[in-house]
């Protein structure tokens, strides 16, 4: 306002000044603002920081405001687990189990049941005492329940959800998970007891190699030598004693998340559990086939506990030679088992 006192000249001066200000000041101001922000800004997140984040490692200066978080910022291992599970375990598990079913069906159609070479003698040998039989059937039942619920957890959503609808599927899958999680530990404990009980029959012997060379009797003529347990039975035993126990151990890791195991540990446990369990399920189908449909006279060993002399001669010739004098007539064992006879297997020594 004071400029106005200088008259028209003052007015002109004011106008020039205003124009000059308008022309010069804004860029200068903006420049200063950016510089100021740049100078006071956080130093920015460098590529090194992101590399560290991606590695999943956290250092002493990592803070997470979630009260129980033991996590990093980015869980890069999750994608690896997803790919391994969805692209490898899931399809190849289906191929293994489905392939086994097909192979067995083909084998049954083409080769058929393995009959006894001679008529039954009617004289019986004790093979499995009551304790082993009850243990076997408990473990077997649990195995089947766990296998079916496990398969449902992996593949059920592709079949049963569209088939039955959400209401039934919700019940079905949650029952599967509950059964799987609560029966799993029971199976694990009983499996260890069963393995410990039959370990003495399953030490590898030299003649087992010959058994495998002849494919358990499929290749060449005659039946290869076998003691109380043949090569195939021993292989099944040692599969359960290795892969089986790995499945049990990894199952415990997954079943009890209250011990602070990390997410990565559980990812690996899940993969071990899946690969082991699907593999064992496939092999178990073979075990079930041989024990029931596949060979005449085998199932009764695990139901009545006794086998016929002819069966023993056919499949376990070395064992038969050891125990043939302990054979009892069929009438002597009858329908009900006598505890006195069932103190142990008729095996005189492990083999």
């Amino acid at each position: 306002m004071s400029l106005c006192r200088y008259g028209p000249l003052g007015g002109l001066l004011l106008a020039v000044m205003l124009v000059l200000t308008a022309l010069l000041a804004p860029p200068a101001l903006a420049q200063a603002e950016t510089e100021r922000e740049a100078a006071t800004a956080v130093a920015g997140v460098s590529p090194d920081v992101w590399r560290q984040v991606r590695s999943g490692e956290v250092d002493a200066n990592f803070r997470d405001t979630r009260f129980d978080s033991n996590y990093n910022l980015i869980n890069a291992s999750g994608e690896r687990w997803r790919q391994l599970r969805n692209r490898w375990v899931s399809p190849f598990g289906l191929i293994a189990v489905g392939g086994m079913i097909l192979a067995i069906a083909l084998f049954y159609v083409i080769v058929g049941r393995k009959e006894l070479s001679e008529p039954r003698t009617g004289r019986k040998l004790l093979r499995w005492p009551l304790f082993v039989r009850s243990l076997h059937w408990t473990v077997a039942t649990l195995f089947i329940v766990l296998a079916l619920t496990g398969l449902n957890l992996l593949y059920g959503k592709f079949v049963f959800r569209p088939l039955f609808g959400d209401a039934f599927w919700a019940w079905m899958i949650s029952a599967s998970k509950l059964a799987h999680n609560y029966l799993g530990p029971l199976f694990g404990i009983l499996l260890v007891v069963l393995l410990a009980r039959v370990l003495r029959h399953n030490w590898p012997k030299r003649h087992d190699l010959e058994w495998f060379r002849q494919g358990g009797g499929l290749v060449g003529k005659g039946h290869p030598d076998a003691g109380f347990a043949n090569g195939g039975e021993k292989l099944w035993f040692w599969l359960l004693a290795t892969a089986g126990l790995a499945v049990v151990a990894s199952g415990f890791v997954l079943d009890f998340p209250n011990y602070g195991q990390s997410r990565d540990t559980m990812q690996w446990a899940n993969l071990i559990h899946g690969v082991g369990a699907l593999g064992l399920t496939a092999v178990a189908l073979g075990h079930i086939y041989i024990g029931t449909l596949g060979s005449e006279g085998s199932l009764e060993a695990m139901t009545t506990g006794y086998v016929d002399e002819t069966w023993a001669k056919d499949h376990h010739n070395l064992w038969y030679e050891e125990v043939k004098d302990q054979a009892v007539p069929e009438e002597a064992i009858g329908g009900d088992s006598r505890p006195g006879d069932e103190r142990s297997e008729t095996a005189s020594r492990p083999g």
Partner: protein
Amino acid sequence: MAQMKFMCDAERCIDCNGCVTACKNANDVPWGIQRRRVVTLNDGQADEVSISVACMHCDDAPCMAVCPTDCFYKTDDGIVLHDKDLCIGCGYCLYACPFGAPQFPKQNAFGERGKMDKCTFCAGGPADSKEEEYEKYGANRIAEGKLPLCAEMCSTKALLAGDAQTVADIFRQRVVHRGHRDGGWSGNQRRDQERTRAGADLTGVDELSYDATRQG
């Protein structure tokens, strides 16, 4: 349709945890669950940086891919939601999630997980009534035409939520005005100056953005 996304501008986040509190308040989140968390890297050092994380509503969501019950689904807005009636608490979504978003109530024996809970982008979830929806999943602000409360309440507007394109536009504008040579995520002026001083040639740096105020 919109593709809903969160984005946290790490240069603005001041680790105030307002988003965490807003979320708990808006959704009545169960005890022991915190759908949003704030992570601070290099805490106490010159390059300290904080970022707010929750479910990022991935395009190719790993949780959806591994869920044994197939309880996840994507809304038309690209929001990843899940059905608690189908959830069995197996924890697979937690193994797969890059952001640690799924959480489980742990009141059961042996640490058995309850029904999974995670950020819903304030979009609720499947339920028969509004009350049931609120009880199970928290608020459905999207149905009311509102954005997630965490982003709405962010004091520095570091946390942005909304259509991916709009969020990207806002962020791009910020980057321009902030004057970064190669984008908001990968560098700032001060470090560029340090790098130039150290002899680095920055002429080839990706000119993702430029300082509009310095043209001409």
